[in-house]
């Protein structure tokens, strides 16, 4: 019963949308984007140094440590800034004479939450292939020999058919005709373009297809060719290749996570490149923890930032610079009071994405009220809207949240609480351990749950 039809506004409807009052606040709102990792592109917010994590330094150490390629998992809760740290690492080495960082993004694939090892390998191959022409050797395509081999392997694997102009591949039940000469000056360019497109299409579609049992987890030929290509990049650039795999933490299926993080490690080991992969936090804990750490070692964890108290006390609990720098970056330093910033920082739970979204909602409220600066009512409205997300929290989650906060145990069972809307925060402590804390936005729902459970339960506490 799928429908998809386009409707443009009819002539009788208003041609102009609502006009918003132009103000400094609107400019700041436009500058705020929770969707682009900080520091990743020109339009993104600049990255702010973290107080709670030293991931970039940890990755530096890992890469410097062994003689061979390194294998590191980067993990942390949703919205905590894993992609931002990955980009910070990539940017640090952007001009390096000895290290070549390539960002590979699983999010460009169809259903990354169910992607297994083949999806991850195709993301590596696709992004490393386009990196050659788009970034590394501007407009220059990979050598024809390796392009021919990859194209031939893709044609075999995907059972493409040849026609007089090129090849016909089939994805998602639809034929894709690939013309070798279309828009290209020579055959090499045409072949390389086809490889780039087919790797992209395969990454989008093949990860979820029913697997041929004879192939194993990943077709061996594909791993070998990907490795051959990575070696070529290494030799040609005379740099050590570091693959930064972002959004692997989007994998939510336990089967796919086990396959990628545990079962496929022998394939990852064959790659002649260091590998830094984001991993779903919940699958680096609990039952899979020891198997995962057996190959990858202890994951690098991005923790939430420190949370100030809700009410200022005698100046000994200032709002951390992390939050001040973000509002400074969007020109809000003089338009938001210290107390309002404190409230936003508190309710963000130290999760940067939540902070940015709360700040955006606050700005919207101020703009719609035609205010020239942020007032406390705009902040309160934003917090109240965010708290509404927790009204849908089922009782079993609140019960577990209650138990974990009281006992400081049971993180392995807290998968749902670590996801959005986040109920539980895992915070680092100075001695190297962690503590579990209820997310400030969830506190109200938990308090109401405890009240509903009755005074006897409260007395037990």
């Amino acid at each position, binding site marked *: 019963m*799928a429908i998809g039809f386009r409707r443009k506004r009819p002539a009788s409807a208003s041609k102009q949308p609502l006009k918003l009052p132009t103000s400094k606040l609107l400019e700041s709102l436009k500058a705020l984007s929770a969707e682009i990792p900080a520091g990743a592109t020109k339009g993104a917010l600049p990255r702010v140094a973290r107080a709670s994590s030293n991931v970039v330094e940890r990755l530096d150490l890992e890469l410097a440590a062994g003689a061979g390629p390194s294998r590191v998992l980067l993990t942390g809760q949703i919205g905590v800034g894993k992609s931002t740290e990955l980009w910070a690492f990539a940017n640090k080495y952007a001009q390096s004479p000895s290290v070549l960082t390539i960002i590979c993004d699983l*999010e460009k694939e169809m259903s990354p939450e169910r992607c297994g090892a083949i999806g991850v390998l195709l993301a590596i191959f696709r992004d490393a292939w386009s990196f050659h022409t788009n970034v590394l050797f501007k407009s220059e395509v990979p050598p024809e020999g390796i392009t021919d081999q990859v194209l031939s392997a893709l044609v075999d694997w995907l059972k493409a058919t040849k026609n007089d102009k090129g090849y016909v591949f089939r994805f998602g039940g639809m034929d894709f005709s690939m013309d070798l000469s279309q828009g290209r000056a020579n055959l090499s360019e045409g072949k390389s373009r086809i490889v780039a497109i087919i790797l992209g299409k395969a990454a989008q579609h093949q990860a979820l297809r029913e697997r041929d049992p004879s192939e194993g987890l990943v077709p061996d030929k594909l791993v070998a060719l990907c490795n051959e290509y990575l070696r070529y990049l290494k030799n040609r650039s005379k740099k050590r290749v570091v693959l930064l795999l972002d959004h692997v933490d989007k994998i939510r299926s336990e089967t796919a996570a086990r396959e990628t993080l545990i079962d496929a490690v022998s394939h990852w080991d064959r790659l002649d490149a260091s590998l830094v992969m984001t991993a779903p936090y919940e699958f680096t804990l609990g039952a899979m923890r020891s198997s995962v750490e057996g190959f990858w070692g202890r994951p690098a964890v991005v923790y939430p930032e420190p949370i100030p108290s809700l009410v200022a006390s005698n100046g000994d609990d200032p709002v951390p610079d992390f939050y001040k720098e973000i509002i400074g970056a969007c020109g809000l330093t003089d338009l938001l009071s210290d107390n309002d910033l404190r409230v936003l920082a508190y309710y963000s739970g130290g999760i940067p994405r939540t902070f940015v*979204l709360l700040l955006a909602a606050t700005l919207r409220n101020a703009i719609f009220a035609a205010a020239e600066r942020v007032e406390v009512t705009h902040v309160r409205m934003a917090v109240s809207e965010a708290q509404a997300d927790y009204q849908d929290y089922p009782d079993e989650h609140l019960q577990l949240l209650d138990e974990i906060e009281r006992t400081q145990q049971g993180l392995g069972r807290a998968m749902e609480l670590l996801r959005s809307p986040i109920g539980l925060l895992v915070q680092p402590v100075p001695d190297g351990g962690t503590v579990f804390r209820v997310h400030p936005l969830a506190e109200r729902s938990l308090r109401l749950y405890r009240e509903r459970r009755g005074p006897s339960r409260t007395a037990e506490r």
Partner: protein
Amino acid sequence: MESAATLASSLIAEGRGVFLLTWLEKSEVERALRIVLTLLGETPWLEFLVPASLDLPNPLLAVLEKRQSQDTSGLADPLLLLFLDHTAGRVAGPALNGWRRGLARTPGSLIVLKHNEAGEFCRGAPDLCSFMITHRACADSLLASWDEDARDVLREAWLGTGRPRIPEALSILPGESLDETEFRNWLRYHLDQAAPARE
């Protein structure tokens, strides 16, 4: 969000992102969408009905695949209106979770689903929903509140001779549809009121 006008303004102000509109009574979501889409003016929109199935409809997949893989938005990209079938919350969550980038791309998306499905939807789409904090509204609790500009736009669109179109998916969702005359009378009444009242 306190009103449909606020939802429309938020879509305009942010110019991207994924918003969620939940509903209890079909007539209320119809009312809210008539106002939101009118206030968005010429912004093009594209609607899809998402069934209670693990697989997204092919036309929607094609649009998301294109938007997800592009690095920049096209100027004429439409707002995506995704109407989730009234039992689709649980299965549509995982199916949509990986498409955050395509859904959020300028000018954004509005996901419409039954209020009691929202919890399941968000648990199945934790990544997508982590970007929807403060991007949620319930059609049944929105106020009939708007400023003077919005009032003019609504009056011109609905109380003149025109007949703005509404998404066709609304006719497929279960429940009693909003009567056209009743809507116009309701709108006329509230546009003439100085003080806001409940929608």
